[in-house]
């Protein structure tokens, strides 16, 4: 199937990729939108640069009006994930949407001039959204690559929104990972991750979760058939070697 990266792409029923490829720097961004009934969830909406936000905004508005957003999830506080949240807040209104993140990450939200109250979640917390029994489970991923980082597991379609974990630099970008994607992951993880213990800790936490699709913040989406191989590569990564 040919994919048009100019459009929002429904990767599973009710779940869209609303990101943008970066064929120059290889630092593609992958925000996601979940629509379930009247609830609209954006995961890691992204940068505030006009060249980036204009794309994400257009893609959101191709699905729902911006002011209908009910929840924004920040898996950690980096500007490539969070800097545009004030634009959403302007459209929806202060405290008219739920901003969800971990305690450590919540400390940084005011630095973006975000005025809305933050809903703090902890490891293993679950949140029911929408009308279809969809549950979002929040799983902390300490020190990958921020102490307060987390991932989100969506139970209905069995998607792991993995934040920077399983991310990759990808100049020759594709929406879906190919059989060589593990090498692209290495180039990213070796640069950003500092300690193998944290990777092993995280992989142990998710080892019993049934995952159909991994949706990272950078790089490509990983379908089920590639997941075992990629997890094997992650377990043996050499990280923290940058000097």
């Amino acid at each position, binding site marked *: 199937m040919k994919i048009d990266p100019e459009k929002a792409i429904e990767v599973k029923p009710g779940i869209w990729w609303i990101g943008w490829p970066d064929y120059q720097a290889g630092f593609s961004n992958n925000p996601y939108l979940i629509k379930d009934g*009247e609830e609209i969830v954006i995961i890691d909406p992204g940068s505030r640069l006009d060249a980036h936000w204009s794309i994400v905004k257009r893609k959101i508005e191709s699905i729902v009006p911006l002011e209908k957003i*009910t*929840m924004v999830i920040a898996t950690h506080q980096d500007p490539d994930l969070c800097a545009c949240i004030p634009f959403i807040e302007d459209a929806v209104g202060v405290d008219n949407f*739920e901003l969800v993140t971990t305690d450590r990450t919540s400390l940084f939200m005011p630095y973006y001039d975000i005025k809305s109250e933050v*809903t703090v979640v902890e490891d293993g*917390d*679950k*949140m*029911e959204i929408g009308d279809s029994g969809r549950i979002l489970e929040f799983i902390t991923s300490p020190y990958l690559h921020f102490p307060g980082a987390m991932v989100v597991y969506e139970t209905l379609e069995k998607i792991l929104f993995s934040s920077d974990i399983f991310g990759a630099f990808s100049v020759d970008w594709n929406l879906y990972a190919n059989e060589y994607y593990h090498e692209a992951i290495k180039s990213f993880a070796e640069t950003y991750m500092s300690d193998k213990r944290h990777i092993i800790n995280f992989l142990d936490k998710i080892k019993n979760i049934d995952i159909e699709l991994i949706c990272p913040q950078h790089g490509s989406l990983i379908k089920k058939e590639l997941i075992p191989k990629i997890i094997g590569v992650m377990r043996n990564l050499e990280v923290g070697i940058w000097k």
Partner: protein
Amino acid sequence: MEINHQQAAEFAQLLIMRGLGLYGDKKMAKICDDSGMDCRVGSSYELPDNENIEDSLKKLMINYSKFNLPAKMTVLVLAKKYGMLIPEELKSSKKKKSKYRQKLEFKS
């Protein structure tokens, strides 16, 4: 659960010392007083001879956490390091509904 007195004493000493450094004598004296703990920490620290020491430690953790979010994170990290039981009051509810759903249910 039986507490390890040695570890609990080290935990309390460290938490109180950090509190004295970060929040000052007066605030820590009040927190220790409210929790039934001794605020005088030196090179060695012993838990007060108190039948309800587990309750005192729990109160110390909860009261300290009320300073602010970083204080709560300090309590959680040190509690993990020293094998302390984290009070239920410091844990989240685990299963939540989005605020949107709560509003919907409140209306109906």
